[in-house]
């Protein structure tokens, strides 16, 4: 059973796999949706504009609940992440290989989140405050917190990769098994594939993508807002 994505063509030394092509198609879809939702905007929205406003308001509410009102400028990145990851992982519904079943997709996003967490922490607390936070409450926990921070992007990327890849493997095995079962009964059309995979399709291609994208984004938000200096209460 082939485990990695198929290589469609090569440019020089670089393989263009189906992951790259599907990722670009998903980005194009999101851009087209955004363009359609924002032209000829009216005061009372309808059609694409209403859908766009629903999506944006949901994401902004989520960011405000988790990070507080002053951090709303993170919302575009968080919204892009959650939409792209959710849409990219549910390509199994169309019998395409999900984009996030490839470690080359999830690890760069996890590294970007990791850089964002630490850059904002240093920018908010200053370099000295950042290092002091790592060594609180006692100085000997410094190696442990450093290791903990270095481990964060690895788990962030591996979590969504492992879950979606497990779904791909289970669905491939299931469809292959149903096909050979139908062939053993002597029919050329694999009619066992009609209703039986439906509950697994719902779980692996609709519930898991949304849950994993939400977890990815929630962890990024929590770590970012924890790293920044807390708001001082004016007495």
């Amino acid at each position, binding site marked *: 059973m082939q*485990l990695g994505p198929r290589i469609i063509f090569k440019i020089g030394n670089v393989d263009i796999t189906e992951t790259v092509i599907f990722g670009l198609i998903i980005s194009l879809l999101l851009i087209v949706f955004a363009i359609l939702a924002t032209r000829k905007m009216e005061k009372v929205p309808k059609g694409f504009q209403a859908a766009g406003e629903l999506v944006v308001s949901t994401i902004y509410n989520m960011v405000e609940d988790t990070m507080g009102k002053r951090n709303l400028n993170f919302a575009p990145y968080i919204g892009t992440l959650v939409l792209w990851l959710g849409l990219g992982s549910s390509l199994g519904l169309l019998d395409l290989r999900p984009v996030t079943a490839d470690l080359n997709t999830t690890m760069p996003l996890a590294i970007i989140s990791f850089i964002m967490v630490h850059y904002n922490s240093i920018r908010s607390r200053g370099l000295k405050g950042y290092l002091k936070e790592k060594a609180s409450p006692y100085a000997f926990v410094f190696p442990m917190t450093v290791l903990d921070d270095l481990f964060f992007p690895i*788990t962030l990327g591996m*979590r969504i990769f*492992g*879950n979606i890849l*497990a779904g791909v493997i289970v669905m491939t095995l299931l469809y292959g098994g149903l096909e050979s079962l139908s062939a053993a009964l002597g029919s050329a059309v694999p009619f066992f594939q009609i209703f039986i995979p439906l509950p697994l399709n719902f779980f692996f291609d609709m519930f898991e993508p949304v849950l994993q994208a939400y*977890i990815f984004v929630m962890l990024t938000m929590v770590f970012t807002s924890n790293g920044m200096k807390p708001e001082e209460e004016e007495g």
Partner: protein
Amino acid sequence: MSQITPEAFIKAMSALGAGLAMIAMAGVGIGIGFNAGKTVEGTARQPEAQGTLLKLMLVGVALTETAGIFALIISIILLFANPFA
């Protein structure tokens, strides 16, 4: 013990290792079951909090499952992308 070629031995040991690696899911099962039990108990005490408790339960499940995903990755590497055979 004759007639076991080295390649067959490596393949057999990889298969054994892949199976043994998934013993880690026992701990994951206990953790998630405990989490679900506490959610049900909380809902029984206060049925209005069901939505919040369900959301928190799902977050807990996804975070606990990460530990099992590492075992799954080792298993898959041994079975499909075996670096020794």
